[in-house]
């Protein structure tokens, strides 16, 4: 337990089937000095996270044990598009939250559509934030508190419950969860 706080970069897994969106989100994340892995589908994301191996397709599958070694690379946050062919962002979110090994990884959903019921169900399922596309720097700036909160091992004092003030993040009026109270984007 050294006194030096490691400057290891946070690693974000970005999931989006659109190449342009992936490029954009990757650039945004990199300007915040995050390490980025971008994949083009929910299935690839599950593969990367090691959830595909022994997970059956039953939606009621119980949390999978973590005995398998999937990656040495740690993922600190997952940001995913909602509308994707195959597994949607919502399905991905659910599978992550059902997994004992991965449920504490913060998940953020992005969508081009401002649908209150969609936003609600994602937040209820455990998504930390819901960003309306196109995602901007101001949205990406909101990720840091979530990353800091779950990175107990990066601080000297191992207090995973120690939080930085999160008020600004949760109550931000513009682009996230409060947004659905505004007029519809269209």
């Amino acid at each position: 337990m050294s006194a030096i706080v490691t400057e290891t970069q946070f690693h974000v897994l970005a999931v989006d089937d659109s190449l342009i969106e992936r490029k954009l989100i990757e650039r945004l994340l990199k300007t915040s000095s995050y390490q980025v892995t971008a994949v083009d589908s929910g299935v690839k994301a599950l593969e990367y996270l090691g959830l595909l191996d022994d997970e059956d397709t039953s939606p009621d599958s119980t949390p999978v044990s973590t005995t398998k070694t999937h990656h040495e690379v740690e993922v600190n946050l997952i940001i995913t598009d909602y509308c994707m062919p195959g597994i949607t962002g919502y399905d991905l979110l659910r599978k992550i939250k059902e997994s004992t090994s991965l449920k504490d990884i913060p998940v953020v959903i992005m969508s081009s559509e401002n649908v209150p019921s969609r936003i609600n169900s994602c937040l209820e399922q455990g998504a930390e934030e819901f960003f309306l596309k196109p995602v901007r720097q101001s949205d990406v700036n909101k990720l840091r508190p979530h990353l800091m909160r779950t990175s107990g091992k990066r601080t000297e004092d191992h207090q995973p419950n120690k939080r930085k003030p999160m008020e600004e993040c949760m109550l931000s009026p513009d682009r996230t969860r409060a947004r659905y109270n505004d007029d519809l984007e269209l």
Partner: protein
Amino acid sequence: MEVDQLQRSFVEYSRLLFHEGFLDGQFSQLQLLQDESNPDFVLEVVSLFFEDSERLLNDLTIALDQQNVEFKKIDAHVHQLKGSSSSIGAQRVKNVCIAFRNLCDEQNAEGCLRCLQQVKQEYLLVKTKLEALLRERHDKRVVHDLNCGFIFQLEQQIVAAGGAIPMLNEFC
């Protein structure tokens, strides 16, 4: 000074595109993401947009040409086009896509065909303008290379001082 002239014409042309509604604030965001370590970011994203759009427009043409029009499929293509145009700030293309999706919901084949023509037109317009804009920028870069980073510094300073260049859409 040549640098100033290029700077001015780049600004003028950007301003025009924002004013005419071809580009919205999202394009400014792309410009902000470009820097010395990623000097071609805007060009790369715009190029992807061109490729993507041309493919989608082609798919749409084929899909609407079928005996049995599959509106779900068409809607999926338009959704993609709406997404990518929105991501680069191609506002007018995006707006036509919104109308297009409504017509898909209504299963209005004729309306969809008209919309397709319209979206093709808007796409070609914005493509021409973006290409011109990027040429301006390219020329600017040539001078930049000759002036050892002067232009970039100039632009960065302007951006740092409040983003006057990229935020022109507020003047519309």
